[in-house]
């Protein structure tokens, strides 16, 4: 069934597609070609600026210790062994495994739970619904600092500090931003199809699980990708909950931060920053792949968030 009822979809298409005639300048004339080339000068210039740090990182990851800082985009000494040695130097495989496990669990939980809650707000009528949803929206505005310490104490009392449970556990309860996003999507589904299903004897859970859930795959993808990225990049939670534990239990961001310190000469290291560069590249690569496959969802999600009534 292809019902395009996504609340976000129109934004996607307008942001993702080029309009056929942006300017009224004719394209085929000499003037049109010059105009187009002129437009590209700043676009290409900024592209180089944005790409440069990636190129620098890629090059540095192939350099021997003494040359990491030489800014050469083509390594003077090409040392691909860095990619073999890094696994012995740092427990990078553990870090990647931990981060992957946490990110998949966090994203799956938050996607499913947020959409259950969102369906509750979108479809059912019950006393206090407006107030409750208002509170959902209000919590999005809350600076994280206020709940940082008490949340730590809650996990500490449960004996879970030092495990990775605090890095995904709260996702069991859904998350305000995603509830908001999913609810917008559900509101776009025609109510009649649910009413008809009710008449056919489908239960309330069936409405969600057998109808709304399969219909809203695009918005699930948005939520999943957003949370996967947020979890994968999360440094602070690692610092709070995992820092005191063994190195093997670190996430990638925490591990790289500790490796930067470990190799620093002020801490008795030898400046083996090439391994940090390899690790930095390996933590970035999955995000770039994720973006390559899910670009339209990311852009759509951001644009939806930015849209105002």
């Amino acid at each position, binding site marked *: 069934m292809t019902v395009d009822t996504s609340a976000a979809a129109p934004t996607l298409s307008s942001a993702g597609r080029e309009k056929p005639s942006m300017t009224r300048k004719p394209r085929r004339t000499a003037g049109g070609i010059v105009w187009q080339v002129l437009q590209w000068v700043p676009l290409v210039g900024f592209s180089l600026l944005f790409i440069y740090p990636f190129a620098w990182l890629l090059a540095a990851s192939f350099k021997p210790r003494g040359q990491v800082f030489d800014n050469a985009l083509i390594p003077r000494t090409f040392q691909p062994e860095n990619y073999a040695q890094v696994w012995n130097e740092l427990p990078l495989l553990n870090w990647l495994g931990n981060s992957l496990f946490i990110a998949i669990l966090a994203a799956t939980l938050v996607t499913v739970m947020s959409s259950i809650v969102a369906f*509750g707000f979108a*479809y059912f009528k019950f006393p206090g619904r407006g107030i409750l949803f208002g509170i959902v929206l209000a919590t999005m505005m809350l600076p994280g600092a206020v709940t940082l*310490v008490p949340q730590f104490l809650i996990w500490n009392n449960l004996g879970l500090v030092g495990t990775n449970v605090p890095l995904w556990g709260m996702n069991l309860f859904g998350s305000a931003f995603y509830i908001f996003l999913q609810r917008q999507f559900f509101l776009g589904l025609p109510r009649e199809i649910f009413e008809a299903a009710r008449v056919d004897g489908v239960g309330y859970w069936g409405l969600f699980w057998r109808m709304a859930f399969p219909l809203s795959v695009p918005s699930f993808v948005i939520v999943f990708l957003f949370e996967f990225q947020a979890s994968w990049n999360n440094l602070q939670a690692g610092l709070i909950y995992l820092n005191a534990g063994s190195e093997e239990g670190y996430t990638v961001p925490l591990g*790289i931060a500790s490796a930067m310190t470990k190799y620093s000469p002020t801490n008795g290291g030898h400046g083996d920053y090439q391994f940090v560069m390899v690790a930095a590249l390996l933590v970035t690569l999955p995000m770039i792949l994720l973006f390559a496959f899910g670009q339209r969802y990311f852009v759509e999600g951001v644009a939806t968030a930015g849209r*105002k009534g």
Partner: protein
Amino acid sequence: MTLTKDRAVADAAGADERTSTEKRPGHKAKKYNRKEAIAGYLFVAPWVIGFLIFTLGAMIYSLVISFSHYQLATNTARPAGFSNYEALVQDPKVMMSLGNTLYFAILAVPLQIIFALLLAMLLNNATKGSAFFRTVYYLPKMTPAVATAAVFFLLLNGNQGAINKGLAAIGIQGPQWLLDPDWVKPSIVIMTLWGVSGTMVIFLAALKNVPRDLYEVAELDGAGPVRRFFSITLPMISGPMFFNVLVLTIAALQTFDEAYLLFYRDTVQAAPDASLFYAVYLFQQAFRQFNFGFASAMAWLIFVIIMIISLIQVRVGNRFVYYESER
């Protein structure tokens, strides 16, 4: 994470409008179906439980802790009256970090807005290839802060960093970015500008929604590009503009990753005072010194400050933002 959350905040107003217009037929009767209501409560229960424990409960807990001396070893709290708040005022590092953070926000937010809008307008005007360039511009947004910091840590190095080498090539003596107190915050601004594409995407979506005919009419009337920008573009995107300012300000006031990674990761090396951000100091007090009472008081101070700044922005914003519904 916080950024994403905050992003939707300003949308809230819009969402409410939308719901009220989407009210379904048959909604007039305020009589609830009992079974449906119970099912509804069950559906939203996970969030309500989480809210009661991890948000409302945590906030009350935080307030209590801020008025006590908390001992992590024994898990006990002694009442402390206002002493944590008094210590807050007396600790010069609190005011210093607050000053640094506000200074950073004032520097960063306008530059982020201008740069993001510039990029969005370039993409919007491009006749060909805008999808390709948008992808390129978005990549830094995907890069984990830890990777960005690892690279910029070396790019910004005052002696051998690529940025100063580049400046030297055009005859400019670059500053000691990471050591000179005057250049610490601009360094972090540069890092955040590199990852400004989230804001850019929001502007781009807004620019695409400006009706073309407005420009055509203005052009016929003899309005130049500058006049068209200020009289058409800016008013037409004022909603998303306001939203971006609000979100970027809240994010700037909570800056943690960049400052921590560049300056406070290494506990041996002393960091310049100019790099002490409020969120970093709060983190140190809470999770390195375990001064939970003091850290909670700090959290409430920044909470109040962020609320006040946001409220001012909302008030000012309401005077300038042009909503389509007002037409």
